[in-house]
């Protein structure tokens, strides 16, 4: 039976639309997987030596154990945002004489072969090998490795529970926030007891039963959960969500583009995929922390220009670059309704402008790093509003990948906007602000750089109609191709 399932799975994989895309994308994806996999293996292999070098007096395995909590957290966070729930088309299997339990075991077992599980394996396997080579006691090391892998799988199953159940998510998230806060302010360091736990696991190999039981227990919980919902009107059918109606009539002041704006707000608030993307764009706000806290970058102001653009440009980069795919599910409606392309594009433009403005307001704490930095963020925001919005919309004209609104993106199966033209169109988004800043900065002064960057944005706003008309024409030209591509079954 399992063999049949596997053959079904294989067909689903090889016949999926993303696999039948161009050869170039396949190669790129292959390299991406290879890159991440290779990086993980390399990191795992080198970790021992790096730790030895940084902290010669500490035992690398202890250091690793002490930092394990961060691996657990990061692992869980990445899984929550990226990993998809196990789905198998069980509807057709329900009436066929197969034992339910087999299907469920298979469904859960399938999740073991997930990219997210392999990343941890790729990191810890080489590390373990290095430990063995270095003469650490094999029994200790191997059982430690086994424990880690069990925890990894336990996280795998925890993630499904979190994903299914909002209360579990909020409970875990708030615990995490509290723990991180306590850790940060040195009140209570959770990483110490956790480090102790992992060290104990290492020194007492028989304790491997604890992670093992943890994994088995979570598996059982998941199993019961799926088993309970194995009916047409439960887990298999998508649940009808509760409707959240918010009064958006205040947006009518935006005139003729108001209907679209209202629609976009609903689009974002009611669909899984846009929600995920907007959440991601929020993290861009913290990008500056990497750059402004490091002295290295102060000698390279053009990098700072790039960073400042990033801080307010999160929404542009994540949501904006997938215009018009967001409307792909009902694109035919838009194309045959009483809508002008320009109005549609203009509404998307306003949406991005509002997002940049909000990010700018939220970025005010950066004043802490000095007015120069903040001035740079302001200039970057103007550039985003005036020029980057148009570059993004222009890139969208070449974007013909349909999006399933209410499904989360999968890692590595999501090739939306992942093509060469998209990447080329994306380049000016990064390079332009750097050049606009760097040239006057080199020739005249820092402030001149700021002014030029800001002015370029103002220029874009002044010539808004001109740009929109040009972009509209490009969209018009690609109309039939876009409609056909969006109508394709995913």
């Amino acid at each position, binding site marked *: 039976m399992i063999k049949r399932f596997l053959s079904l799975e294989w067909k689903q994989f090889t016949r999926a639309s993303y696999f039948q895309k161009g050869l170039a994308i396949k190669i790129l994806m292959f390299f991406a997987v290879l890159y991440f996999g290779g990086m993980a293996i390399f990191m795992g292999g080198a970790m021992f030596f790096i730790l030895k070098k940084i902290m010669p007096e500490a035992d690398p395995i202890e250091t690793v154990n002490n930092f394990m909590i961060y691996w657990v957290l990061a692992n869980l966070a990445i899984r929550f945002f990226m990993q998809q729930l196990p789905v198998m088309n069980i509807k057709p299997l329900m009436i066929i004489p197969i034992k339910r339990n087999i299907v469920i075991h298979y469904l859960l077992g399938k999740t073991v072969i997930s990219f997210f599980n392999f990343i941890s394996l790729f990191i810890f396997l080489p590390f373990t090998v290095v430990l063995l080579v270095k003469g650490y006691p094999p029994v200790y090391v191997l059982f430690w490795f086994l424990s880690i892998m069990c925890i990894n799988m336990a996280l795998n199953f925890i993630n499904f529970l979190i994903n299914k159940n909002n209360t579990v998510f909020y409970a875990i998230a708030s615990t995490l926030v509290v723990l991180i806060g306590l850790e940060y302010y040195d009140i209570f360091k959770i990483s110490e007891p956790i480090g102790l736990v992992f060290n104990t696991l290492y020194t007492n190999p028989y304790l491997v039963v604890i992670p093992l039981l943890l994994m088995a227990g979570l598996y059982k919980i998941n199993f019961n959960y799926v088993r309970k919902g194995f009916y047409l009107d439960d887990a298999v059918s998508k649940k009808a969500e509760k409707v959240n109606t918010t009064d958006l009539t205040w947006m009518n002041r935006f005139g003729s583009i108001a209907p679209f704006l209202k629609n976009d707000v609903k689009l974002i608030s009611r669909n899984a995929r846009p929600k995920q993307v907007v959440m991601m764009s929020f993290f861009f706000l913290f990008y500056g922390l990497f750059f402004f806290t490091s002295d290295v970058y102060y000698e390279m102001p053009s990098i700072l220009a790039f960073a400042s653009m990033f801080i307010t440009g999160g929404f542009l980069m994540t949501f904006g670059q997938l215009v018009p795919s967001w409307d792909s599910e*009902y694109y035919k409606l838009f194309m045959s309704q009483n809508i002008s392309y320009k109005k549609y594009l203009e509404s998307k433009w306003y949406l991005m402008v509002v997002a940049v403005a909000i990010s700018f307001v939220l970025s005010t704490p950066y004043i802490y790093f000095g007015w120069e930095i903040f001035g740079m963020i302001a200039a970057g925001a103007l550039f985003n509003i005036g020029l980057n919005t148009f570059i993004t919309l222009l890139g969208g004209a070449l974007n013909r990948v349909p999006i399933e609104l209410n499904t989360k993106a999968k890692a590595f199966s999501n090739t939306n906007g992942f093509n060469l033209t998209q990447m080329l169109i994306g380049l000016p988004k990064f390079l332009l602000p750097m050049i606009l800043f760097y040239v006057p900065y080199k020739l005249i002064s820092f402030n001149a750089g700021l002014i030029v960057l800001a002015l370029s944005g103002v220029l874009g706003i002044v010539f808004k109609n001109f740009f929109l008309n040009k972009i509209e024409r490009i969209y018009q030209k690609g109309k039939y191709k876009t409609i056909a591509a969006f109508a394709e079954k995913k």
Partner: protein
Amino acid sequence: MISVKNLSKSYKGIRVLNIENLEIPKGQSFGLVGNNGAGKTTFFSLILDLIQPTTGQIKNKEILVNESEEWKTFTSSFIDESFLIGYLTAEEYFYFIGELRGQTKADVDTLISQFEDFFHGEILGQNKYLRDLSKGNQKKAGIVATFIGNPEVIILDEPFANLDPTTQIRLKQIIKELTQNKDVTVLISSHDLQHITEVCERIVVLEKGDVIKDISTSDATLKELEDYFTGSVLS
């Protein structure tokens, strides 16, 4: 109202639609029948400028559909579920279409209140997104949305499919009333010969992209169509 000249559509050299000449006068209720792959949806998509004709042209009220967008102001259509916005409730969807067509909320309310009977209490006030409605109920919402904003041309692709018997009967009445005053041109396609002969004054039969029959509906039409499709089974 709609005039078609030398229209053809080919995919990779295979011709899927070929209509030399077709005039649909204003106010006509026009029916399109044909087996799967006959070109019905292709024809409707061409009228809506969703695909590009290989040759020929379509004029909607003297406007070339692939050159100007003006026809959109008086044409409305429901071809398939991709004409619905899944994350809106039915009411929100109606208001959205209303806003696009320059109707106030009150206008839309008045219009849809006439269709309460048709909705059978399953569309309005449900607090459900359109994507969570059943196929039949989605269709009801999509069909009624095409009546918003006083369109002069209404295009419905297989409106009877997926509807329950009661709703089918009501839809027939609605279409008859629409075309009574000869103001609104209605184009529908269907696989149900009885329904279409009942509501359409003219029926065109397509087969593999060609117009095979062009009938002005009479009492004999249903028999004629049935004979034709029986024949195509036998031959």
